[in-house]
């Protein structure tokens, strides 16, 4: 029983993801599957970003660059080289991780606002590069050859499969987030977040730890990118690197509670729910992003710890259960 209690922190997140995974089947609805896909994607991305933002304390304003880059790499191998979806996802995850590693070596020495600005610059630079990179289709992007779907038993089967892979990836993302949070490596990251200089004096090799945190936060977004564009059937520079999507991710992590395992999951659920309501409402549909902006402002000003963080602070015994 003691073991069960020790791992309580991962049980709720896993149940949430499993619930989302079976919801479309239970309700037998393709539109629910689309909604669930979007929510799962948001959870996977927010949980990944949380490793850098929540645990390490580095704000990345351009995290979507890993989704776009991974998606492009994956689709290239899927479409142009005829690789299967699994291999394409692996190579995409690896590429995004490698990109983060190289970027990390260069920009993780920047702190605070300077790092955040650099991440925006990287997103825009990547967009401009892909726009001019002919193997990836330049400004037109790439359209998935329908023959690719045939491998998986036709378009509808392929889309259904993509959904379940998405659920698997989300599960992997939250388990990764949990393992980092409760590991020694994670303790080093938290120390860096709280006080980087003091952490180094204690012996945390901050440059390495930060780089690996950045890499871990980039791999799953890269794989998610492949699935997302595989499902959409095409990829273009402006749909692969939307800056506002990075900011939406920040809102999700901040809303649910940065630095906690459950926070980004709740944040993603709440934000996607809210967004679903706004984009279908006559009044809000055009100002949906400004609402997100106001929301971010309110969180930063009044509950900087986010929902889960607030609960943890309010009820100290919860800390044990909500890592």
């Amino acid at each position, binding site marked *: 029983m003691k073991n069960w209690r020790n791992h309580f922190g991962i049980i709720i997140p896993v149940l949430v993801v499993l619930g989302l995974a079976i919801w479309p089947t239970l309700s037998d609805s393709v539109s629910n599957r689309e909604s669930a896909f979007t929510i799962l994607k948001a959870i996977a991305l927010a949980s990944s970003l949380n490793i850098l933002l929540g645990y390490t304390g580095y704000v990345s304003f351009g995290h979507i660059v890993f989704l776009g880059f991974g998606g492009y790499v994956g689709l290239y191998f899927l479409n142009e080289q005829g690789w299967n979806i699994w291999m394409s996802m692996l190579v995409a995850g690896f590429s995004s991780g490698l990109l983060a590693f190289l970027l990390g070596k260069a920009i993780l020495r920047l702190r605070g606002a300077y790092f955040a600005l650099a991440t925006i610059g990287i997103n825009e630079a990547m967009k401009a590069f892909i726009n001019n990179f002919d193997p990836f289709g330049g400004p037109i992007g790439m359209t998935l050859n329908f023959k690719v779907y045939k491998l998986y038993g036709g378009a509808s089967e392929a889309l259904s499969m993509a959904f379940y892979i998405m659920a698997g990836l989300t599960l992997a993302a939250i388990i990764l987030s949990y393992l980092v949070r*409760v*590991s*020694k490596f994670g*303790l*080093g990251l*938290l*120390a860096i*977040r*709280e*006080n980087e*200089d*003091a*952490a*180094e*004096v*204690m*012996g*945390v*090799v*901050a440059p390495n730890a930060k780089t690996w945190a950045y890499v871990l936060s980039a791999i799953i977004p890269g794989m998610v990118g492949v699935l997302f564009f595989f499902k959409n059937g095409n990829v273009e520079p402006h749909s692969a690197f939307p800056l506002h999507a990075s900011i939406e991710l920040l809102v999700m992590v901040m809303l649910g509670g940065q*630095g906690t395992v459950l926070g980004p999951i709740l944040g993603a659920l709440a934000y996607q729910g809210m967004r679903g309501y706004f984009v279908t409402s006559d009044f809000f549909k055009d100002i949906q992003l400004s609402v997100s902006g106001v929301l971010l402002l309110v969180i930063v000003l009044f509950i900087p710890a986010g929902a889960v963080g607030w609960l943890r602070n309010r009820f*100290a015994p919860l*800390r044990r259960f909500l890592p």
Partner: protein
Amino acid sequence: MTLILQVEGVTKRFGGLQALTNVTFDLPEGQILGLIGPNGAGKTTLFNCINGVYTPEEGVVRFHGEDVTGSKTYDMARRGLARTHQIVQPLEELTVRENVMAGACFGRENHNLHDAGDIADEVMEFVGLAARTDQLAASLNVAQKKRLEMARALAARPYLLLLDEVLAGLNPSEIGGMVEIVKKIRDRGITIIMIEHVMKAVMNVSDRMVVLDYGQQIAEGTPKEIANNPQVIEAYLGDPELAKRLMGEDE
């Protein structure tokens, strides 16, 4: 007697400011060295040159005989050097126990989380923080935060411990408690350099002392020699003759 630390001609400048000039001393294992001097004398700068926060412009720092001048702070931590900060640097949003565990995890012995937890429990007991284990570090008062700094440094099981004004801001009974802790640490075989302004305490615990004034090393010796050194008295009190008369009147 093996030397744990050798500081040879260390000089540090900040632009036009000469923060340290040619500071030289040896530190044998197992001793407590008191580092004193008026405010701005360069004491903390010397610590920063020893543990790798700054690289001195001139001079060499040897740790266990090895040249470590300009090493990174985390390299020094792994070699077995731990320090506390004059201005406490707790990891505020982590619990007291997590703070101390971080010291054990990343210090010289590089423990896993489970062993670090055991060490943290033992060290918190030792410095008197056992009742505060699950509190956030931010919620501690100044005296407790100083103990936390100490606990975190000790959890690393260092060979050499740099204590930067651990007594400052404490009331007399807290000072007594802290001095006892320092002595107990020495008895465990850990070498200590302590920067301190509370003269009575530092004279009492130090085996030897080094005095800095405007970055110059003006004296070195036993506490007794230091107390009677006219240059030291001048640095602290101004005119040595006047100081002598004052002290004479005292007796």
